[in-house]
């Protein structure tokens, strides 16, 4: 209002007929409005409404079916909701679906401005559902409106532009099957929260469970082998994808291997998700961030917790160690002219079991193979661009890919089997010929 700038004050404005901007004029008498407000102020509990207003509040509440429900969220929302109902109910020629009572809001289901179907649309919806969602079987008088429902449903269910590729599809199926296999292998059973419906008798359940257990234990080893080889094939395909990505990256970046960290100093390079400046996986993640490789290509189907899409658009690293499928050369310093040379240096490999143990402060087993393939071996991508399957983590040259040379030199044969003290995450490759990957 600009009253101060206009010498002749304008006549007082008429009372706003629509203070809540519902777009309609409320038709309550002042007393009714006051009673209704008091009712809402009392959190819809009639016994807390002042005596003088209670009879009116009672009537209003009963009229709108609110007696059965708990408060709708937000006072302003409540009021405009009810006022718009009143306005509508008083408006001739508008038929509402079902009763004029607003929907119950027991669980806060309806927003303050919940929409309501017209009678015809509601009937058409019911008829369409009844006809098994077949518009042609809907009575002709309702068919047009049923078609509108069909169009709306198609809108919500249509495959989007980001439909999963064949590759992503196979990947999710594979990861799901890995989870199931894990559950079978670890004998995981029902979680307590998911209790079995009481309508099933315990004896029935036990007999079914027994049959399942026997069947699974007989058939699982056979199935496991088939599954393992299909997983290895997919993982090898991933490695080839990463090899292409590294080729393209080094070409665009002056022959440098991906490195976004500036050395690690004294902080461990396995700070995954906490600090991308001291996390070696952030270096490998660069390939995804700069779109040289898809995250799905760096997700091994043998790692059920691998992610195939970024957690956020500005992500610079995986968010936890579990999500990482592949270990990358520990980049303690920038390295040029390594990729694409006829070297057997391992640049990327299936994730390191040594790091997974060391992070938890456990004894490490240098001869252990990657958990990606159930400890049977791992893929290793060497600087010459070849991806190979290794039954042990030790290269023909005697170099262990999980450890830097200085540590390898001080452990004897017996210690390799027995286990040694964990590494600290601050170790670095001894030289350009020393294969050492993590985390």
């Amino acid at each position, binding site marked *: 209002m600009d009253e101060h700038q206009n010498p002749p004050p304008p006549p007082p404005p008429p009372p706003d007929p629509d203070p809540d901007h*519902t*777009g*309609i004029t409320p038709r309550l008498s002042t007393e009714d409005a006051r009673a209704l407000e008091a009712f809402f102020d009392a959190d819809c509990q009639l016994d807390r409404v002042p005596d003088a207003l209670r009879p009116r509040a009672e009537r209003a509440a009963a009229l709108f079916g609110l007696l059965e429900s708990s408060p709708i969220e937000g006072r302003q*929302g409540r009021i405009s909701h009810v006022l*718009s*109902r009143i*306005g*509508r109910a008083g408006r001739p020629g*508008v038929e509402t*679906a*079902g009763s004029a009572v607003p*929907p119950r809001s027991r669980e806060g*289901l*309806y*927003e303050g*401005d919940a*929409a*309501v*179907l*017209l009678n015809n*649309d509601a009937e058409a*919806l019911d008829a369409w*559902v009844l006809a098994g969602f077949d518009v042609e079987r809907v009575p002709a008088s309702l068919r047009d*409106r049923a078609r*509108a429902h069909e*169009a*709306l449903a*198609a*809108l*919500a*269910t249509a*495959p*989007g*532009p*980001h*439909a*999963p590729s064949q590759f992503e*599809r196979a990947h*999710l*199926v594979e990861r799901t*099957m890995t*989870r*199931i296999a894990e*559950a079978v292998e670890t004998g995981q059973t029902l*979680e307590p929260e*998911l209790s*079995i*419906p009481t309508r*099933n008798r315990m004896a029935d*359940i036990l007999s*079914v*469970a027994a*049959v*399942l257990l026997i*069947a699974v234990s007989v*058939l699982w080893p056979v*199935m496991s082998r088939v599954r393992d080889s299909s997983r290895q094939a997919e993982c090898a395909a991933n490695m080839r994808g990463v090899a292409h990505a590294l080729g393209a990256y080094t070409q665009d970046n002056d022959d440098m291997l991906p490195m976004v960290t500036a050395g690690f100093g004294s902080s461990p390079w396995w700070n995954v998700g906490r600090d991308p400046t001291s996390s070696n996986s952030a270096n490998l993640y660069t390939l995804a961030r700069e779109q040289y490789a898809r995250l799905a290509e760096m997700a091994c189907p043998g790692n*059920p917790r691998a992610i*195939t*899409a970024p957690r956020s658009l500005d992500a610079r690293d995986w968010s936890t160690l579990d999500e990482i499928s592949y270990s990358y050369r520990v980049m303690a310093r920038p390295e040029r002219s390594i990729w694409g040379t006829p070297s057997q240096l391992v640049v990327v490999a299936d994730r390191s079991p040594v790091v997974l143990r060391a992070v938890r402060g456990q004894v490490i087993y240098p001869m252990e193979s990657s958990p990606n393939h159930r400890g049977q071996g791992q893929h290793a991508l060497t600087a010459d661009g070849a991806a190979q399957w290794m039954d042990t983590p030790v290269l023909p040259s005697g170099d262990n890919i999980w450890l830097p040379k200085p540590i390898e030199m001080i452990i004897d044969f017996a210690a390799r089997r027995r286990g040694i003290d964990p590494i600290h995450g601050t170790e670095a490759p001894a030289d350009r010929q020393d294969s050492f990957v993590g985390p």
Partner: protein
Amino acid sequence: MDQRTDEKLVEAYRQGETEVFRLLVERYHDDLLRFLTRLAGDRQIAEDAFQDAFLQVHLSLGSFDTSRRFRPWLFTIAANKARDLLRKRGRRQTLELSAPIGSAGGGSGDGGSFIDLLEVEVPPPDTGLLAEERDEMVQRALDRLSDPLREILLLAYFQRLSYAQVADELGIPLGTVKSRLHGAVASFAKNWREVSTERERPANQE
């Protein structure tokens, strides 16, 4: 491709044909993932819920009554898993703060509560709208629904079940299913109209 029904596959899995589980996972991959992506509004959560759902199916198979249908059972489990994950990962903002209340800002002056479906324009695919834009608008319209409404809408749309079947699956009274679905469809139609209008008038000056 195995022609057996889902229920027959479940039966076979129980009898020891372990490889049929993969068939079920493959059979439902597209539909279930699309459903979960719409429900959660996030692909990664949808993929996690997808895995959780099948793990749950595997774990609970002993209690599945094969005289019932598998699909609704799976979708209901999946919806529960998505809900759990959303809760765990810090629930997303479902109602955008900028969402108009009623149609007060739109100037149509009709009060905005009642929706006439014949007035809601749903352009057929490949007309005018880019697939990406359309996809994003649909998600926005869905995100503005409260969680239970979004869930019942998508369950009904994706599963194509009768009211009685939905009531049975969700364990809620038939009348409630009906009124919730009516509310959900109306709100979705209204939200769709709103996002369409916002798109047409992106720089609407007050």
